[in-house]
């Protein structure tokens, strides 16, 4: 262990051993995976949970009388309780398994709007939202003849509470905002926003896709109405996500999709819908996904958020300092309250070119608009190069990345 690694609060070598994928070479160089904002790699405990499910108890859940079905059902419902504890929800009925954050937001945009949004009502989002927290609301506005209002993004990548207050009117029904920006890294002041919204009877949806594995989230303390996140960005599998919602609200919302599992009784004359949470979970769910995402939550808890946040800050500050020292580098998103994400450009080098050279060096970063086109328009840029970090990344990797950026800059200037 050398000096650089000693700065970190944990033994990352031990953590890396739990991620088999990280020990490979790409284009002849050791893989450096800095594309964690897109998806994280999976630890052995998650991989083994998936393997074990298919090897020993794969079966369809709910209403089955046989051994395997009972076992799978118990595991799936236990997973729901694990997630409930992980985010501090009061009731397990408040945890809905979805396909991902996008699916979860679509569910709310559809069902909440159907129950509560009427012609002329207003929905507020921010200018840094991922397309998945823009488009469902645009669709809802079109459907309900409502109006979409956007909180402007400031030059440092933050939003101002004054601007939020200015946008709120007596027609505002819901504020949907990201907890942490996937492009800028900004952690939004959601506590304040939720409290303002609550005082005016406005509902809130928090897109937690980029926050859930970087900071402790307690939905009861936050007092948000909805909180959505994805399994695959928190060391779990793809195809599963979670929608938390307050029970009383969920009860008033109509189902999103119809089918098996979401019903109590079906006749051709009238169907009675099932109770929560099943009312919002039509069809055979991603059973193994639910079980594995709970395993991922347990894995995160075993590391602990104190350690995670120390690591995040250490690596973010180190990389920001090193990158800023390179002439011509401009970082987009310079808020002091940031998750471990750095979006940047160098002079007029195109992000695609920079990303291509870094890939040759075995370094995985994301280039492009990061599904935040309006945000790119706001900064008048075509896209950025984004390095986003996870618990298994090291300061040595940052050093190699910085050398790579310098090399690429030399080749492309």
């Amino acid at each position, binding site marked *: 262990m050398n000096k650089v690694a000693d700065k970190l609060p944990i033994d990352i070598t031990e953590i890396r051993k739990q991620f088999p994928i990280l020990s490979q070479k790409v*284009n002849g160089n050791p893989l450096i995976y800095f594309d964690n904002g897109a998806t994280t790699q999976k630890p052995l405990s998650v991989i083994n949970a998936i393997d074990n499910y298919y090897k020993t108890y794969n079966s369809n859940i709910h209403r089955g009388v046989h051994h395997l079905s009972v076992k799978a059902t118990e595991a799936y419902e236990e997973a729901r309780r694990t997630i409930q504890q992980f985010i501090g929800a009061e009731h397990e009925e408040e945890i809905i398994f979805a396909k991902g954050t996008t699916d979860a937001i679509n569910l709310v945009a559809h069902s909440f709007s159907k129950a509560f949004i009427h012609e002329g009502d207003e929905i507020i989002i921010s200018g840094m939202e991922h397309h998945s927290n823009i488009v469902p609301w645009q669709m809802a506005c079109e459907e309900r003849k409502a109006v979409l209002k956007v909180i402007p993004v400031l030059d440092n990548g933050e939003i101002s509470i004054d601007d939020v207050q200015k946008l709120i009117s007596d027609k505002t029904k819901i504020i949907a905002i990201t907890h942490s920006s996937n492009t800028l890294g900004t952690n939004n002041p959601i506590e304040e926003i939720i409290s303002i919204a609550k005082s005016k009877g406005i509902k809130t949806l928090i897109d937690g896709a980029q926050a859930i594995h970087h900071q402790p989230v307690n939905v009861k303390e936050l007092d948000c109405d909805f909180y959505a996140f994805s399994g695959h960005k928190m060391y779990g599998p793809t195809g599963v996500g979670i929608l938390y919602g307050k029970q009383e609200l969920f009860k008033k919302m109509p189902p999103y999709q119809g089918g098996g599992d979401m019903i109590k009784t079906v006749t051709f004359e009238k169907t009675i819908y099932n109770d929560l949470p099943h009312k919002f979970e039509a069809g055979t769910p991603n059973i193994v996904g639910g079980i594995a995402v709970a395993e991922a939550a347990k894995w995160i808890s075993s590391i602990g958020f104190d350690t995670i946040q120390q690591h995040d800050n250490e690596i973010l500050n180190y990389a920001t300092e090193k990158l800023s020292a390179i002439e011509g580098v401009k970082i987009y998103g310079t808020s002091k309250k940031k998750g471990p994400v750095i979006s940047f450009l160098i002079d007029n080098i*195109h*992000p*695609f*070119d920079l*990303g*291509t*050279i870094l890939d*040759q060096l075995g370094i995985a970063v994301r*280039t*492009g*608009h990061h599904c935040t086109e309006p945000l790119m328009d706001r900064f008048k840029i*075509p*896209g950025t190069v984004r390095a986003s970090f996870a618990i298994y990344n090291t300061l040595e990797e940052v050093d190699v990345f910085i050398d790579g950026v310098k*090399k690429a800059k030399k*080749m*492309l200037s």
Partner: protein
Amino acid sequence: MTIEEKQNQIIDEFSMFSDWMEKYEYIIELGKDLPLIDAQYKTPENIIKGCQSQVWLHADLVDGKIVFTADSDAVITKGIISLLISVLSGHSPKEVAEAELFFIDKIGLKEHLSPTRSNGLLSMVKQMKMYGIAFQAKV
């Protein structure tokens, strides 16, 4: 030179590079030689939008041969376009339409022409061939 001979020549040139850096430095250089599209043709109709980089392409029919001009906002994309144009420009519409492009794969740039790259290059090759088909009616 035929389209096939031109491709073989490029493969020979690229076989001399000992590492990826030399190869990419050469591609970046090639980008500077790209026959640039005239400003009047750099219109939204001529844009081939990729998720990552975009490409503008124009074609003229001169004495029965297609002459391509293009541009891109990314220099590596520009270099690869330059290679594609050097291979296909100056040939008859039929030759362009029927050309089998094997050199990209052989010089280790296959990933740049895969749909996952989304840099506009795959669509550009299709568009070049479309010009070949469209111009066949004119000659």
